[in-house]
């Protein structure tokens, strides 16, 4: 029954697969919006503090739990003898599967917009009306099935030949396309205004509690924590790879894509006269209503629009495969099914689960009505269940693995972490994750009108008179440090491996 467990083949492939999990729609359509809204460049301060102080440790915890147990999420919780391990671990399989059921619907939309951009389908049309009519067209079924077919096919090929190989193509291409779109965006006449909006620090943003809440939510979701994805990908890590430095490298790689995305969106939007519209739009509105209008007006917009949606679909697909993988791993390891059969069955089930979301689009009315079911599922799964599972994963490592957990963290690590990490994972990280859960709960209840407004909304003043040159330098240094740090780390790692190989040969 027991099948030989696959592991990542190469270090570079593992890094790209992990970045693939983390880089998703949230990086491209949410992070730039949050930066623009909450104080411009200063948003990076709470973001990086929470990223390096809390979220990286949660990533480390999930990797440790995965690698130590070498099991699917359910099996991992059972193996460490976590109380109610089976019932709680089941959420590590079922939670991501529900998430996958609607995430893949949105991935389908993105794929449609690749076709729509190259075919100039939205050119000369009202973008909002175009999107609404798309939701009630046969296209929606075709792209949904296509997206599931792509992810299931990749997963059917296995960890090395499927996930790793696909990410080796998708993630470098994503970064390359992002850089091409950024260059086009920042070289448009009038792009300076967009850069100013995006990066000009408005220091008062730091005093706004909403900024910190938004940063906490973003760091947690952008790293795919609590989705079982990090846990299952962590279980494929080789023993010879140190966890802390790799977790940091992946996290910084993810952050650099988020920052770049803002440079792709805002300069173009402001240059082409959609500044106010873009700065006030979030998520779906920004991506499917506003950006098509920007690309329509841009010289060779069909090409840059197409490239932008290709990179967005790569980000979405690489994340989607990571949230389909826990259920496939469970079928393989607990039921002894073959990978191909598991991929096929999960593909069919998720297609069926997605149908209500698609049919919902045929209900007459606005976007709120057409996306009602999808929104409700996101509230339960994305905003409430996943933070809770993330919390449980951290508690599992901090309280139930203790010494074993600490040994696993530093196993074969070149840069070892001191014993302080365990109390940090045991007490500090859970407090922040719990805080995130309660804040999400309050926000959900507020939005549903069940409770009065508790979290204060502080309106941000207009641009303060801070020199654009100084602020741009500060932000560019931050970005360069992140990108440079990531590359140096990876090069260092490659050189170190080469040296080890040479030593081995000489020895």
């Amino acid at each position, binding site marked *: 029954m027991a099948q030989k467990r696959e592991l990542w083949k190469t270090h570079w492939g593992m890094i790209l697969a992990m970045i693939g999990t983390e880089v998703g729609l949230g990086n491209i359509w949410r992070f730039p919006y949050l930066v623009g809204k909450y104080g411009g460049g200063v948003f990076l301060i709470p973001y990086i503090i929470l990223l390096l102080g809390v979220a990286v440790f949660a990533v480390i915890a999930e990797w440790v739990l995965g690698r130590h147990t070498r099991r699917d999420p359910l099996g991992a919780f059972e193996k460490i003898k976590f109380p109610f391990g089976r019932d709680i671990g*089941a959420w590590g399989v079922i939670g991501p599967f529900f998430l996958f059921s609607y995430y893949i619907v949105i991935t389908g939309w993105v794929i449609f917009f690749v076709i729509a951009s190259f075919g100039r389908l939205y050119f000369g049309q009202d973008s909002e009306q175009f999107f609404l009519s798309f939701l009630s067209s046969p296209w929606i079924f075709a792209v949904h099935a296509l997206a599931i077919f792509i992810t299931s096919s990749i997963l059917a090929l296995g960890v090395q030949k499927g996930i790793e190989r696909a990410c080796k193509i998708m993630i470098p291409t994503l970064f390359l396309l992002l850089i091409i779109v950024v260059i086009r965006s920042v070289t448009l006449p009038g792009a300076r205004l967009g850069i100013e909006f995006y990066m000009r620090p408005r220091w008062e943003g730091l005093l706004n509690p909403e900024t910190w809440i938004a940063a906490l939510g973003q760091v947690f979701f952008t790293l795919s924590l609590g989705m079982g994805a990090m846990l299952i990908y962590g279980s494929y890590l080789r023993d010879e790879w140190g966890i802390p430095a790799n977790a940091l490298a992946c996290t910084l790689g993810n952050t650099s894509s988020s920052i770049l995305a803002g440079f792709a969106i805002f300069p173009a939007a402001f240059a082409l006269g959609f500044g106010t519209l873009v700065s006030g739009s979030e998520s779906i509105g920004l991506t499917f209503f506003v950006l098509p209008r920007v690309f329509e007006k841009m010289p060779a917009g069909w090409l840059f629009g197409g490239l932008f949606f290709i990179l967005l679909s790569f980000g979405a697909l690489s994340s989607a495969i990571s949230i389909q993988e826990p259920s496939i791993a469970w079928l393989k390891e*607990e039921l002894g099914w073959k990978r191909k059969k598991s991929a096929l069955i999960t593909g069919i089930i998720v297609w069926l689960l997605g149908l209500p979301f698609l049919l919902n689009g045929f209900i007459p009315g606005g976007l709120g009505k057409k996306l009602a079911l999808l929104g409700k599922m996101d509230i339960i799964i994305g905003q409430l269940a996943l933070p809770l599972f993330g919390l449980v994963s951290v508690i599992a490592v901090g309280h139930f693995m203790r010494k074993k957990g600490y040994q696993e963290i530093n196993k074969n690590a070149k840069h070892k972490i001191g014993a302080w990490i365990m109390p940090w994972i045991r007490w500090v990280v859970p407090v922040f994750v719990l805080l995130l859960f309660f804040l999400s709960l309050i926000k959900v209840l507020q939005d549903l009108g069940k409770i009065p407004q508790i979290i204060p909304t502080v309106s941000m003043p207009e641009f303060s008179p801070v020199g654009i040159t100084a602020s741009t330098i500060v932000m560019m240094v931050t970005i360069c440090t992140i990108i440079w740090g990531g590359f140096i780390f990876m090069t260092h790692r490659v050189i170190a491996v080469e040296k080890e190989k040479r030593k081995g040969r000489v020895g």
Partner: protein
Amino acid sequence: MKLSFLASPKFGWIFVWTEIVLIYLAFLWFHRIAQRKRKAK
């Protein structure tokens, strides 16, 4: 029951919660059977 009930928020919540609970329970049941089979072997 009016057909418009299917488009109401109330039905949406009932549908989503039912789906989540039923699939979760079915999953646990399926897992238990798998474990029993494994132990029997």
